[in-house]
């Protein structure tokens, strides 16, 4: 999968949840959205990107959410 595209998608989701006053709730919202709507190979690609490339390009909230997904923390 095109990781650049996935990073962009994750950042778009994060920008929506950024207005959530409770940061934790925002991160949980991003992670839940990705888990709920992304096909497994997309999920694997973004978590691999997080693991292998430090999540380059991911916004702070998106990175936190993807890390949480990578550790199965949802």
């Amino acid at each position, binding site marked *: *999968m*095109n990781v650049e*595209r996935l990073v962009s*998608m994750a950042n*778009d*989701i994060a*920008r*929506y949840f*950024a*207005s*959530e*006053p409770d940061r934790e709730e925002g991160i949980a919202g991003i992670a839940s*959205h990705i888990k*709920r*709507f*992304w*096909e*497994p*190979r*997309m999920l694997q690609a973004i978590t691999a990107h997080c693991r292998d490339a430090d999540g380059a390009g991911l916004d702070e909230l998106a990175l936190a959410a993807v890390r949480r997904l990578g550790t199965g923390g949802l």
Partner: protein
Amino acid sequence: MLSIVENDLGTPASRAVTTVSLEIDGKTVSVPEGTSVMRAAAMARTAIPKLCATEMLDAFGSCRLCLVEIEGRKGYPASCTTPVAAGMKVKTQTQKLGQLRRGVMELYISDHPLDCLTCPTNGHCELQDMAGAVGLREVRYGYDGANHLAAKKDESNPYFTFDPSKCIVCSRCVRACDEVQGTFALTIQGRGFGSTVSPSQNDSFLASECVSCGACVQACPTATLSEKSLIQLGQAEHSVVTTCAYCGVGCSFRAEMKGEELVRMVPNQDGQANHGHSCVKGRFALGYATHADRITTPMIRQRISDPWQPVSWETAIAHVASEFKRLQATYGRHSVGGITSSRCTNEETYLVQKLVRAGFGTNNVDTCARVCHSPTGYGLKQTLGESAGTQDFDSVEHADVVLVIGANPTDGHPVFASRLKQRLRQGAKLIVIDPRRIDLVRTPHIQAQFHLKLKPGTNVAVLNALAHVITTENLIDEAFVAERCEGPAFAKWRAFVSLPKNSPEALEADSGVPAAEVRAAARLYASGGNGAIYYGLGVTEHSQGSTAVMAIANLAMATGNIGRVGVGVNPLRGQNNVQGSCDMGSFPHEFPGYRHVSDVAVRESFERAWGVPLHDQPGLRIPNMFEAALDGSFKGLYIEGEDIAQSDPNTQHVTAAMSAMECVVVQDLFLTESAKLAHVFLPGSSFLEKEGTFTNAERRISRVRKVMSPKAGYADWEITQLIAQAMGYPMNYTHPSQIMDEIAALTPTFTGVSFERLDELGSIQWPCNEAHPLGTPTMHIGEFVRGKGKFMLTEYVPTEEKVNARFPLLLTTGRILSQYNVGAQTRRTPNVMWHDEDVLELHPHDADVRGIQEGDWVGVESRAGDTVLRARISDRMQPGVVYTTFHFPESGANVVTTENSDWATNCPEYKVTAVQATRVSQPSDWQRRHQAFTERQLDLLGQARSPAP
């Protein structure tokens, strides 16, 4: 000419609940208060002669044929304009009445061509009928006096003729255009004997403002206005009620047939979505169904550069199954998928997703709603608990303030637009939020109170600003919110929208809308009585499409404008079965009824019914399929009725993805843009050739009925079933009603739906179950589907698609009345007489600074691609914004649009593309390549149709 089967009762039905008893010709009759004497008589099976009266229109009282005698009243009142009264005693047939009526008929007939035997309406002409009814035996005036018999026939309209020699100047056509359609294109010009019907200012019908809805043709009591198909083919011998396959209004029609030949489509007076009205597409643009371009033989080829090989159905189906099995064996189970279409029936889309989930064993199924209303599904589910609009169309009759945002109903949903305009002419207020001055802003007898002419991409900013005014000016319906909505979420939302950054003043620079106008519009919506919001793709097709939908739901909840008639959140769905295709589980993450694939109980219910284990993870969305194809992990795609190569954004990207697949199967009527990139072509069936159901924008499920045999031998659901069987997954339906029975058994909101029940009720708005056995016209009464309504935060996040020095204009795209989506159907009809190419609309200032004149070729370049279109200079555009449609493949509108998409659903941001426009003298490189590719593909098709000896 009215339908051959409907019994016209002369005047509209009264909606009164109290009844009145009267005596008509000695018979006691009880009818609703307000009913005309004419209608009351007709209800008692007493036909009073009439010519200017039809139940389509308000009573007019001009023909003087329906005179009656009423005990205690002087003279001979017209029964059409006389309401019933308790105890009234009416005589409809007396010697004097007969004499008066014959006198009237003598005058009519003295100026009428007596060519009944060769007249297209012979046998269904109301003038002819009335001559018989009144016992006309002679015309004392003779036929040699002044007359209109030499008046010239107007044949300019491609679908109907206007023969003034047959006109009796009853004004039914004029009134139909005014009252029903609301275009006011016709008038009676002149006085007395010189009175004639005139389109616009003595124009031909084609050159006039007429929108060819056909209401006048239907209303005409003689053959003055007649369908050309009726003239050519003669009258039908039977009619079948079915549902239109164009927009999301879902009009009910009577297909009038001679055997298997369609004579004409007549909108069904009993149609619960359209109440007897139609538009130019649904009534007339049917020629595509029998067009010579229809492909009726299955074809296969190894590579898209190969000639097509016509094969038998057995060979084609076996080839598809063999290829998909090979791909799954080679690349894995999830290397294949399917795409359903909103143009297909519920039963067809249900079967495709079942084939993909159960037959292929993957959730890689998506639908074209991905690129239109997927944000509606997401946004309304989050806030209200159900992925659907909240009202029926009739609800608009009770609206006091109508807010239309990102929708152009007069072009996209014309029959609903007519209903809306009727309400607006009665005095309801109108707020339009749109970058363009759409027709609704100012149209005969209608002027929007506010047109918030925002910049493309700023819907959420404006919606937040409206909410800001409502919260900070104490316009919240506190009681409603306290009772019906989640308190903490509301408090959070209230604090958010009240922030100064969300004020109209703070957002004015972004949105371009003067703050004072936003404030006034917010006050009107919140305090003007019943407030109803109608929206379209101008809301959803943005990077913040889902956010905007949630912002709309927030507004409705905050003002208590939801959960009753006359209010609500009303998505105007683009295609006929967008709602249905979504309901049927076409999205990769959910089963029918919007239930997530990870829900164990739901999944198990489908596993039990379908007899196979099902995948518990979401599948690929359409744009994800493209990425996976380019990545090499997605190799096979079954597309039923959708043309992704024309309708999806950045078509060069789509084309590259499709070219990377090893087996693309397209099931369609024509060699579409996608079919040109396919390895297998399976000839599909038009809506006239199959049984099924469509679900319109008001959740109304209506029957589609077969009126002719499938041209290629199979209805689409049968083809899907054949593929399933060849893949080794058993499907053995013998009729689509069995598919609906399965849907009902598995989907709580459809429990009470069956073909039998639909035949009985005419149509059903889901949810239809034990709690709502007759369906649900208005949702969320008393309680939201999710329990308490949930306010969602809607931060305005500007799109990343920004103008700069290189791309200084914003392109937004849309549709036009006479064409439909990718145009595969309407381009193959005479509708091209109104629109034969997509053009670029731009403001005079933008044209002027670029040296662009009306009709010039203009190069349109974006970050994604470039194309060339002709210029149309229009002050309905705002400076800095240009507009085009996407009905013609060669125009390449979606070569220019980008892959930016809604954050929640990946619905493309068609409505915002930064472009430059430059005067040019030749087609773009893409257009040249496209033309060459098209010519090559047509040549390959031609070889298949006429194989070398």
